[in-house]
């Protein structure tokens, strides 16, 4: 019965062929390690976010006078509304956990290198879109951090020469963050995930055109070195989902406010600025880069914004900065060390971003801004350094295996 239906469909649209070639029998390198799980995990979180977000939107009210109350209505009166909201709020955190690991994995094993540049580009575009989506989503509960975070970030647009000031008014729908801002952010926050979903399809199309990289970073021979995606990677990904859920849901059920600022449980008050405005943790390194450029007088703001955007945009040209004949850092000791300095530096930047701009260490002897500037320099030095050690052939790669 099922077989004959599928034959009828396949004669008109080759669904079975697509499933076979792109999913079940899709050839996948046999040596992928668990770091390769985070792509499918990110997709899993995206689906969770779409599902929970859809139901939250049915109860949420994008109105400056009603938004905060409607979130509490979801928490208290909607059946399992608290579960929906905590899944969604913590989902944002774990989305970025997955995406950051996914990006760093790509950087380490050279997954951005030829011929995977377009695949990598779609990834960077997705990352940008996610940051925009997360930012607008954080505004929706209309708490103090929502409001003032939105005020600080939208104000950055005013740094753009000539049109900046007017552009901010156009974006906000007024002279300050207010009801029109909230309303449009809600609409865009609903729209963006579907754009992201479309980009993910392009990302996967690009992946399936060139196939997966692998920890050795060498080209694989189909058949000898590969396994059909199903059952090998379906089960490995599913197992990954199980482990991931245990961590994610532990926060949802037992510490749902761990990543949230307490201030966001205070309704937005345009007349009262919080003592310390702090963005969500996943923006902290970039926030630190923004604030570290404070020594250029009236150009500081613009330079800070450019540096912050550039910190991500530089990923677009990463495939050409790295000139080594070897992709994987497994065989590149020097690049590997640079990589770990870079990772550590991201944490330092995050820590600087978390603390107030005028904070100091050792009783005022060491202003945090100095650490912030240094860490910003180190961040960009990674990309320059990687280019230098490869273009000048300073690094001597270890011999590559013949096959995986």
């Amino acid at each position: 019965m099922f077989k004959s239906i599928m034959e009828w469909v396949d004669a008109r649209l080759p669904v079975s062929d697509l499933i076979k070639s792109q999913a079940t029998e899709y050839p996948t390198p046999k040596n992928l390690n668990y770091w390769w799980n985070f792509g499918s995990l990110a997709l899993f979180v995206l689906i969770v976010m779409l599902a929970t977000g859809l139901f939250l939107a049915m109860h949420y009210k994008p109105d400056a006078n009603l938004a905060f109350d409607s979130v509490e209505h979801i928490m208290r009166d909607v059946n399992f509304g608290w579960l929906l909201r905590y899944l969604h709020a913590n989902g944002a955190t774990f989305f970025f956990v997955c995406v950051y690991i996914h990006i760093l994995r790509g950087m380490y094993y050279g997954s951005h290198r030829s011929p995977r540049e377009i695949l990598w580009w779609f990834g960077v575009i997705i990352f940008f879109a996610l940051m925009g989506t997360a930012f607008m989503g954080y505004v929706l509960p209309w708490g103090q951090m929502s409001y003032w975070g939105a005020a600080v970030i939208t104000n950055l647009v005013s740094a753009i020469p000539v049109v900046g000031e007017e552009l901010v008014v156009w974006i906000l729908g007024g002279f300050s963050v207010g009801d029109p801002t909230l309303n449009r952010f809600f609409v865009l926050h609903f729209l963006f995930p579907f754009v992201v979903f479309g980009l993910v399809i392009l990302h996967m199309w690009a992946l399936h055109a060139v196939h997966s990289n692998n920890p050795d970073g060498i080209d694989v021979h189909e058949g000898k070195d590969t396994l059909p995606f199903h059952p090998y990677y379906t089960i490995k990904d599913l197992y990954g989902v199980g482990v991931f859920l245990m961590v994610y849901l532990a926060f949802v059920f037992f510490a749902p406010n761990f990543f949230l600022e307490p201030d966001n449980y205070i309704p937005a008050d345009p007349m009262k600025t919080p003592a310390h405005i702090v963005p969500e943790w996943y923006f902290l390194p970039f926030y630190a880069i923004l604030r570290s450029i404070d020594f250029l007088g009236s150009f500081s703001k613009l330079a800070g914004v450019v540096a912050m955007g550039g910190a991500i945009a530089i990923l677009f040209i990463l495939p050409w900065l790295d000139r080594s004949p070897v992709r994987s850092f497994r065989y590149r000791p020097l690049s590997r060390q640079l990589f770990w300095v870079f990772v550590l530096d991201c944490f330092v930047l995050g820590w600087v971003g978390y603390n107030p701009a005028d904070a100091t260490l050792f009783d005022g002897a060491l202003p945090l801004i100095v650490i912030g500037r240094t860490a910003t320099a180190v961040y960009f030095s990674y990309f320059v350094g990687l280019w230098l050690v490869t273009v000048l052939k300073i690094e001597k790669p270890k011999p590559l295996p013949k096959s995986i």
Partner: protein
Amino acid sequence: MDLMKGTIKVAALLVLLLPQWGQASGGAALPVQEWGFKGIFGKFDEAALKRGAKVAVGVCMNCHSLKYIKFDQMRAFGLPEAEIEAMAKDSGRSRKDRMLSVMDAVSAKETYGIEPPDLSLMTKARKGYEDYAYGILTGYLTDQESADIKKAMEDGKLSETERMEVAHVLHMDPRHEDKLKEAITKLEGGGNFNKYFPGHFLAMPQPMQDGAVEYGDGTKASLEQLSRDVVTFLAWAAEPTAEQRKGMGIGVMIYLLVFTAMLYAVKRRIWAKVH
């Protein structure tokens, strides 16, 4: 597993490098309390909730509201309907009403200069959470402490020992003499000093003292007891679904543990042919 080794090293380094992840709040370190309702297996003590509700209605609600809670919801922790009806009546409302303050916002603002914040989310909306609320309630100066400060300032100046003493009483930094003096001047001017409020001076005068509420269950109504009970009640009010959440979480985690173990076994079995 080269990437894994590096990850472990970096994680270890981070634990060493960034010990002070937290930040200063501007007030003194909060008195950290044991709260039985916190933690994965934590449950609310119904007797404490009942006592705390009495404090909230009898003391807090003279100025503050708990707008996300209706009187009737207190049946969830076993408060009898008749008692709820009586409590509501005392505030001039009925059992089905929201727990709104007796005082309206406008006259509260006239009296205190600010609109008293709604308390429904108080234990979630401040750094320190329950400990913060407890700290504020117990952080006003006792009569003895006020007298000590007055005595230290009798001659109009602070000697070295007096300065240490005053700083100790006020939970302030003894090195900043100007700040200490400023605080004392404000105190003498009738300011509401609190050891744990960031900036130390707040609009709220001390809301209650020993025996502010008469408990029906024989518990001694000391300031500490009253504060503990009302904070317990506020923690419940901040998220009445918290116990349901944690209970469900335990079931979900047990299920996931078994299910993931099974997935791992299947994974091993399937991959056995490759390895």
